[in-house]
């Protein structure tokens, strides 16, 4: 049985091969977050104190800064993909849903950008 619509067959349209993109990105980001999140929790709880000097010194180590950037970017990405599905599932009014999706996406982009900016600022040594 063909699942293509008669109109689609006449117009010669088909899959844009992007149907699995959301699914695939969610798996990729989750796979990356397994080691990244474990590293983050262990690294954070291993800090001798949360004094500014200690935290800033930690953040300015090259490997810490690199992994923190990856953690924030991939974490925000995974979060955006997840929250998007929740909104699509439970917010039924079309207008409210679209608006919520716009706000959610912008908020995640802002958080990711701010996080990366903060890490790099400390890592490149321009924090006061």
């Amino acid at each position, binding site marked *: 049985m063909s699942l293509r619509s008669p109109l689609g067959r006449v117009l010669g349209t088909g899959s844009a091969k992007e149907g699995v993109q959301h699914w695939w990105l969610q798996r990729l980001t989750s796979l990356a977050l*397994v080691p990244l999140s474990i590293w983050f929790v262990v690294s954070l709880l291993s800090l001798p104190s949360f004094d*500014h000097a200690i935290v800033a010194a930690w953040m300015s180590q090259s490997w810490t800064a690199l992994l923190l950037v990856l953690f924030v970017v991939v974490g925000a990405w995974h979060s955006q993909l997840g*929250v998007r599905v929740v909104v699509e599932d439970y917010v039924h009014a079309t207008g409210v849903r679209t608006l919520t999706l716009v706000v959610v996406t912008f908020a995640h982009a802002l958080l990711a950008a*701010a996080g990366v900016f903060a890490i790099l600022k400390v890592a490149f040594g321009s924090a006061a």
Partner: protein
Amino acid sequence: MPQRPLSPHLSVYKFKYTLATSILNRAAGLVLSLGLPALVYWLMAVASGTSAYTRASALLSLGVFKLLYLGQLAAFCYHLVAGVRHLIWDTGRGLERAQAQRSAWVVAGVSIVLMVLLGYWAFLAGARLS
């Protein structure tokens, strides 16, 4: 378009372990999303210098935030273990009913053990830091 019922319909499913593990994973993911603004706020505070950091630390030490950290810890443990279960499912393994039932118990057990261990460590770290 005809108005067809769309999944997920929380109210029409019988409450079973499949529903419980699935909705818990989603809830845990949402809780973790709430942690993201707090994390970024903290990172921005570090980048803004000592006085800004002192102010942010005072805010982040409030009881509301301690509750948030507790939620983050529990949600992280569950979401991590349940997420690995999903990744294993994606390879086509463990999808039989008996296997899925067993792995649901494994997820519950492992995540609770992880919560206790990590909670104890975080409590020790909290006691040391304050």
